[in-house]
Every structure is written in C-alpha cells, then in structure tokens.
C-alpha cells in the first residue's frame, strides 16, 4: 500500500499525466506537483504523483556511496 514507484512523465493534460513505469503506462493525478515537465521522474502512489525525484540528488547519493566505499 505504501508502495510508491518511480515513473517517467510521458504527457501531461491539465491535472492528469500519463506516466510510464518500465514501458507500462498509467494515469497519474498531478495535483501535488509544481512545474512538472514531460521527461521528469516522479513517485507514483495510489494514482497520484507525490513528489518529484531529484536526478541530481540521486546521482549525488550514489556518488557519495561509491566514494565512501572506495569503489569505481
């Protein structure tokens, strides 16, 4: 239930976007997201996008993790 999956916005029509999770398309309510753009990643939960996923922070966390562990 608390499952939320990262999805990519494919198209936006007002408050509703079409989003893709590994090729499967869903409809998502965008009422909680400011300035959403096609191509953005958002977290989908119970039919609504609940937050944008920060690509920069995702890359940064991963970089720190790798550096911290001295690999790659």
């Amino acid at each position, binding site marked *: 239930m608390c499952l*939320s999956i990262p999805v990519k916005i494919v198209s936006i029509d007002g408050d509703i976007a079409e989003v893709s999770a590994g090729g499967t398309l869903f409809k998502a309510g965008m009422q909680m997201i400011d300035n959403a753009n096609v191509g953005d990643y958002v977290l989908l939960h119970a039919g609504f996008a609940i937050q944008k996923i920060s690509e920069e922070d995702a890359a940064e966390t991963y970089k720190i993790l790798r550096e911290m562990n001295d690999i790659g």
Partner: protein
Amino acid sequence: MKYIDEYRDKELIMKLADRIASAVKRDYTFMEVCGGHTAAIHRFGIPSLLPENIRLISGPGCPVCVTDTGFIDKAIAYSQKEDVIITTFGDLIRVPGSASSLEKQKAAGADVRIIFSGLEALEIAKTNPRKKIIFLGIGFETTAPGTAVTIKQAEKENINNFFVLSAHKIMPPAMEEIVKGGTNLDGFICPGHVAAITGSSIFNFLPEKYNLGCVVTGFEPTDLLQSVLLLTEQANRNEPKVEIQYNRVVTVNGNIKAQRHLNDVFETCDAYWRGFGIIQSSGLTPGKNFERFNAEINMPVEAGKHDENEMCICGEILRGLKEPGECPLFADICTPENPVGACMVSGEGSCNTWYKYRRQDE
C-alpha cells in the same frame, strides 16, 4: 531502470555490509516503521547481511494492518446496503472482520470494487448516479493527500453520491506511543514516503525528546544498509538526530502543495489502531467544510461489538514486542491464503513477509 539498478549494486552492498560489521560495538535494535521497508528488508535478505548484534524490528507502518476490526465491520455493514458500492484498495478486502470480510460479502453479491486511486471511485460515482459510492480511505500521510484531492474534486464537480469512510492516520503519534510503551530501541528507520509529503522535520521530536536517532530511508538495498550504518554511527557517538538518507525524494520541509491539500480537507481526530487502541490526534477525518463527504456523518451505520481472534498477536507485532514466529497460528492455521489477522493479509504485513521469506527459519 535508472535509480533502481544502481542501488542494487552487489559490490556496493557487500562493502556497506563490511562497514556495518566494523562499526558495531554492542547490541542495537532499530525499528523500521514503514511496511514497505519491512517487505524490502526481507525481500533483499538484509538481516542476513547484518552482524548478529543488529536487530531490525517492524513497527506500525502497514496501513492495512493497523486498520481495526471495527472499521472492517463498518465497511461490511455498508456493503450490505442495496444502494451502496464500496470502493477500496485491494488488500483491505481480505482482512477478516468479526464475522466476515469484504471479499466474502462480494462473493455473496455485494458491490465491492477494487480501485487504484480515489479518482477512480469518483468516476464510479459519476457513472452510477443512483448509487452511493463509499471510498474506504486508509493509509498514512503518503496516501491521505490523494484522498484530499479526490474530495476537493468531488466538491468542485458537485458530486453528491460520493462518500469517504476515513481510517487515514498520521505516523508520529504512533511512533511516540511505541517509545512511551517501553519498546527498547536505538533508533528508527523512518518511512521515506511519509516524509516525501511531510518532510523529515516531523521526526525532530524523537531525538529532541527521546534521544533516539532517525534516518529517513529509501527502499533499495543500499538505501537500507546505508541507513543502518548511519543509525549505528549515531548510536555509537550518542548524537541522535534526524538524517535524510533518501534525499532523492525527501527534503526537510516536504511537499508543501500536498500538505496544503491535506490541511484544507482533513482535521485530526482520535483514532483506533490495531494493537494500540485509541491514540489521541492520530487520525484524519474530513473537516467542517467537507462534512458532506463523510460517510459516517451522512449515513451512519451500526456495526455492533467487534471480536478479535484472541490467539492472533498482530497487536504485539505492530508494537515491536513480538515477532510472527512467536504466534502459535503462524504458517500453520494462519497463511496468506487463509489469513486470521490483518498482518498476514497485506504484502507489507510482518506475518505475510515472514511467511514469504523467512518461514524456513522457524
């Protein structure tokens, strides 16, 4: 997909496990509050990567599990009315009430429909104008804003046959109950998707008031391991604080727009949690301006006195006091096909997760 594969990197997972092993100095118990974390921890075999003196225990963060029998009984009472269509998220229909379940009612002819989003319930209301549509609102801060948006949409479109039976809840009061109840903890693995909405600051009271570390955590193996490491280090230094590990999604202040929807529509109320009883100001109910969408006010039902199965220890499991293996019914009488308690129904429930991944250990 991007953002997933990288967080499942084997080499990184093993390095993190090594670092945790060299960081431990004593015994530690950390509680993962979110049911999504419980499921991920066992799916990825995290306990097998941790030294023996780190124990992870599950908390009250599976919304289906903490929803009490009284709520199920009420939903069943509604489903028995001729003019009602029940709309609900999937897991809930299998949770046993005192005498039946929504699934059994459906088999007996009640109109119970599984939906993925509140907006779908609204569509059903529009296409069935002569029926009353009741949406079973369960879930925490992650899910409740969606219900708020749905209610606002119903108001905007002036839909008069849509009602919400709300068992929405908020997380911090239950975490405080756990601490006050004396469960021995060294820190919390805090729910990442609750915090995506609320921001990490809602957990500040835990280090401030109770000297407990908090790490807001993502759902991939490296997320979980990194958080265990951070919590262990916090405990070693005795410097508890709120850290955000899941910073690709979570900020200190959260999603302000979602919070606004939530606050526009809902008010807090006392709420009943399975295993805890009433927790003050821990539930969400539609406020004054949206009362016409509140099922309980507009079409009250009597559900009678509810019965729990006395052998089921879901309550103690949800408070972190016992583990599923300690239940005499576990995997024997109580299975996912034939659940006795709510914790065996939901894919995020401890008993269900243990059944899937840890039965052989018992």
